[in-house]
């Protein structure tokens, strides 16, 4: 290596000898800047590798960090509330103006006891209702876009569905509470309730139909929010279905419906399941729209129209008053609820990824 540190064989910038064009310019030999440039070029690969490793580790570290912090914050609540937190139905902050007592070394207001079962169940209920409504609509829309509509109309519909995905959830929440909820309560729910017989399961759909803020309204608003997710994924999957089997089925005399049911849908089935679970994950974590339209009552909804709440909605509506609990116990209970929500979301998303990965491998083999 030359003494000046330039690598052997490397030609420093600007030392190609004098040429007419560069005659008037100052010499650009291995100035300090030139050296740094060389050094940077040499280390580019290493830097790129390190940056890549950080980028890989960072999201995982962030997730672990968040869950660890939540677990630490939740620990007093886990100790005092125990298993009751998962099964109990009373969300009692206790007397924040009364005396402070100690249980298992954790100080908390007298009478405070937290049971998150209504929140956990509410989260599951709203998400399941959303998926039940969104899935058929999404598959129908995806079929319409890929198979039925003329290309120009399909493009407009596809674009609209993607736009829907970009609308902030607070907009859906406001619309739900001001327009959709009252409309459903006056014009739709009473009709459903009137025709439902008094038998198990369907009994859940009977009166009173309430005022438009509740479980079903929450589920419907959520459905609108996850339709774009399921539609977009299903549409992409349908485009991958080769045309040969479909054409074959048609030439065997199958109707379009039969082709869709027995050729196209089985081809994409597990992909659609993956997309649905992805939508479910989105529904489980949705916060503000549900905080607005579910009625915010911490209870197991006695019927499908009743006000209720979810884990995420409770965290946002209770956070400020929880911060007025000087012992921090109310915050700890919210942290435990958040921990449960995080675990449910991670599990659901991992399942979705596994299903989607499996399908794309199958697709590659086909």
């Amino acid at each position, binding site marked *: 290596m030359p003494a000046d540190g330039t690598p052997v064989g490397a030609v420093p910038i600007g030392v190609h000898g004098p040429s007419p064009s560069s005659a008037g310019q100052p010499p650009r030999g291995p100035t300090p800047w030139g050296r740094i440039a060389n050094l940077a070029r040499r280390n580019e690969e290493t830097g790129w590798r390190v940056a890549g490793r950080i980028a890989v580790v960072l999201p995982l570290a962030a997730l672990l960090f968040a869950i660890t912090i939540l677990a630490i914050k939740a620990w007093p609540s886990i100790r005092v509330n125990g298993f009751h937190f998962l099964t109990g139905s009373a969300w009692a902050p206790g*007397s924040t*103006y009364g005396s402070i007592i100690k249980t298992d070394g954790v100080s908390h207001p007298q009478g405070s006891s937290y049971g998150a079962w209504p929140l956990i169940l509410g989260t599951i209920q709203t998400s399941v209702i959303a998926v039940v409504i969104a899935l058929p609509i999404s598959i129908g829309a995806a079929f319409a876009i890929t198979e039925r509509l003329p290309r120009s109309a399909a493009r407009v519909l596809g674009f609209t569905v993607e736009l829907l995905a970009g609308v902030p959830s607070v907009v859906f929440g406001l619309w739900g509470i001001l327009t959709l909820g009252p409309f459903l309560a006056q014009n739709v729910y009473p009709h459903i309730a009137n025709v439902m017989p008094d038998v198990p399961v369907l009994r859940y759909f009977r009166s009173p139909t309430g005022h438009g803020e509740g479980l079903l309204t929450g589920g419907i608003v959520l459905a609108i929010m996850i339709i774009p997710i399921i539609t977009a994924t299903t549409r992409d999957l349908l485009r991958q279905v080769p045309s040969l089997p479909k054409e074959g089925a048609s030439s065997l005399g199958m109707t379009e419906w039969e082709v869709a049911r027995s050729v196209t849908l089985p081809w994409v089935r597990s992909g659609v399941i993956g997309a649905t679970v992805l939508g479910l994950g989105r529904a489980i974590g949705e916060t503000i729209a549900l905080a607005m339209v579910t009625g915010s*009552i911490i*209870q197991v909804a006695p019927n499908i129209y009743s006000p209720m709440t979810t884990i995420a909605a409770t965290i946002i509506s209770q956070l400020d008053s929880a911060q007025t609990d000087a012992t921090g116990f109310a915050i700890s209970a919210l942290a435990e609820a958040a921990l449960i929500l995080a675990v449910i979301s991670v599990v659901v998303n991992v399942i979705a990824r596994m299903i989607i990965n499996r399908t794309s491998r199958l697709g590659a083999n086909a």
Partner: protein
Amino acid sequence: MRRHTNVTRTPRAFRFIRQSAIGGAVAAIALSAASVAGAAAPTIPAPPSSAVTVAETGSSLLYPLWNLWQPVYSHQYPSVTISTASTGSGAGISQTLAGTANIGASDAYLAPAQVQANKNALNIPLAISSQFIAYNVPGVKNLKLSGNVIAQIYQGSITKWNAAPIAKLNKGVTLPSTPIVTVHRADGSGDTFIFSQFMSATNSTWNTKIPIGTTIPWPTVSGALAETGNSGMLSGCSATPGCIAYIGVSYLQKAQAANLGEALLQNAKGQFVLPTTATVTAAAASFTAKTPKSGAISMINSSAKGAYPIINYEYAIVLANQPSSTTASAIRSLLTWAISPAQGSSTTFLNSVNFVPLPAKVVTQSIAQIKKIK
């Protein structure tokens, strides 16, 4: 309150007096002479001349008053920018203790445990407010209710408007069989705090089962609604026939415009009263001597004659040691201005939100607390 109108001077007139006077001290003397409440108007300390922002957040009951104060004060003292927000008393308390906001507006004083954990925090009474019980029963005027009956409604043991306990209080009134829909606050609320105190004071089952607080474990009642903020309570109740709601008195005009009824409440002497200047003042007077220097006192169910049973001090929750002396001086000026009977607590301001000014003794105590802000 709204039922008497001895408005003497507008804030505009005060501004004129102040601008035409030679110095601040002269203006203060002129203003104290104009004082209507009988209390000596405190000298308003001038805020810093450099630009400073004071962030206020909290009580939705106090929010309409802050919005009346903000432009008038900022016009008098252009260096101070005030931001106001209606987030609920719970948020007012917690964001102030966390240092996010400078002034937390709250209908509730700090809990003993909070005082223990934040020795630096002050609850400064600013004015006296009350709470009315709204109902949406078309055709029924001047409904009479007692705390005991309201507690049974909110516990789900009285479910229809024509139930016997309600009919007994309203002899000669035709009540419909509409189901009662209870509405309570979803967010941490000083209104919940004073309402739960009234329930505990008048119903023994409630008293043993449910604690007082800005958020309480509500008994399960079929069809119950929860709303955020006083404005949410108001819109939720007016949209729901059969509803009953507890709402801060600063929303009374809006409730009347929305055709909600205002219930006459039975006081400790057995009289049925509405929140008026006379009934709220009578209740407040019975607590003035007992009000401690810290300002933390519940004024529920006064035993005085003609007293309205649900009244409270509206508080500014402030940390005594502020991050900068500039901010501290702006807060001192603003709060002194707010409780001065000649300025922020003139009838012009307080009448429009149906509040009652602090008695002279409490003004003096509040000034002493304001002086601790450094």
